[in-house]
């Protein structure tokens, strides 16, 4: 069966929501989606229709419902209650906090015994104290490094939590895996990118972020996945001027490209407000 009538991109929204487009049409529609608020509105509505069709599915089966055993199994698989992030940070800080009295608690009684016993033992203890001092200096150094790392994370956290930050989720064809989150401060013209469940790009290749400004792609940073499939890029500059309507990710040569050379892998609209 041949298609003699090409659909206008906006007319693909209904079939896209149903997952009924062919791969070439999916790419065409997703590229259009990145630039068209109207297409995004259409798609959001058709996704609701798709959900509602599910609600109206097979009344008999729906009224029977899943078993009690399944309910118990699913609820048991849910995440357990997590403490707020601040508590985690405090706990980690407590774990690396200095404890200067601890070595001395063991050293002082020994020192008293040594003074009463012999000068040799005193000298030995002095040696021990020097060793303890070196150990403490080493711990101070490690503590300083950890404190610096924590301060960097605090700084990153503060920039992510400042007023006016908007968070966008870039998705791949409606599939949540892999994902990229973009934290955008339009007031400061900066963004932070967090990618997860991302496969490493092939050798010599990298992922590249694009901002769609006035309907045209503007190249931004390149990045790749770490061992855990994650990437975190801070302090990304937003393109100045114009209207930024979307962000997208493509795979490009490792040095990046001036224009996208492959299809969009992930995309998200960046509405102005």
């Amino acid at each position, binding site marked *: 069966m041949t298609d003699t009538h090409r659909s206008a991109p906006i007319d693909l929204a209904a079939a896209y929501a149903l*997952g009924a*487009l062919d791969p070439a049409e999916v790419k065409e529609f997703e590229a259009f989606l990145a630039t068209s608020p109207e297409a995004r509105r259409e798609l959001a509505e058709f996704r609701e229709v798709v959900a509602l069709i599910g609600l109206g599915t097979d*009344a*008999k089966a729906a009224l029977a419902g*899943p*078993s009690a055993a399944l309910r118990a199994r*699913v609820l048991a698989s849910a995440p357990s209650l997590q403490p707020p992030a601040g508590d985690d940070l405090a706990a980690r800080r407590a774990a690396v906090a200095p404890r200067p009295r601890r070595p001395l608690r063991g050293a002082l009684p020994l020192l008293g015994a040594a003074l009463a016993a012999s000068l040799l033992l005193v000298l030995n203890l002095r040696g021990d104290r020097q060793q303890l001092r070196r150990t403490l200096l080493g711990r101070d150094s490690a503590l300083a490094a950890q404190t610096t790392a924590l301060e960097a994370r605090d700084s990153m956290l503060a920039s992510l939590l400042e007023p006016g930050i908007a968070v966008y989720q870039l998705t791949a064809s409606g599939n949540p895996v892999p994902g990229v989150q973009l934290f955008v401060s339009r007031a400061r013209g900066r963004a932070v990118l967090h990618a997860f469940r991302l496969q490493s790009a092939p050798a010599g290749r990298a992922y590249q972020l694009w901002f769609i400004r006035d309907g045209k792609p503007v190249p931004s940073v390149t990045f790749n996945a770490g061992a855990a499939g994650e990437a975190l890029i801070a302090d990304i500059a937003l393109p100045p001027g114009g209207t930024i309507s979307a962000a997208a990710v493509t795979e490009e040569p490792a040095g990046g490209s001036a224009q996208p050379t492959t299809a969009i892998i992930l995309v998200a609209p960046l509405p102005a407000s």
Partner: protein
Amino acid sequence: MTDLLRAESADGDVVARAALGEERAVAQLYDRYAPVVYAVACRIVAEHADAEEVVAETFAQAWRDAPRFDPTRGSAAAWLVTIARSRALDAVRARTRRDRVAPAAVARGDDAPGMGRTDSDPADLVDLGERQKRVRDALEVLPPSQRQAIELAYYEGLSQSEIAERIREPLGTVKTRVRLGMLKLRDSLRPYFLEAAE
């Protein structure tokens, strides 16, 4: 109807609390939508045991993705049904046998699937029943050819090209049927979904 919209408006908050592991929110989300997820799964995979597996996988993915759920991009119902359809269609594609059990037989299964409903809020069941009736009514008034095209895409995961091959009609005709059918459903069901903010 107002109660329904109010319930849906609170879904984003429920998902956020479920993501933090709040037991009540987790149970609330499951009890509200498991019947729907199960119904979609039943219709696609056609067997009770497989449908339950799809429900388990759907919620397992929902717990993982809940921290990133964005209520401005669609309702929790749309989110969960999208996951469920994807999982169910994957299960069908992975299955080698073709002798599907008629969906109606699922409801007559021997292992008392209805027991799980004892934990659901009766008000949720009333809302669900009302909504199902509205959706069925909307589907029933569609021209049969449009309903057929949409159902082949929805429940069998066929693309428009594959539908055209299956029913031996031109691709352009299938595309028109899908779009017109979806437009009619959107118009008749709009009062029943939570408008996604742009």
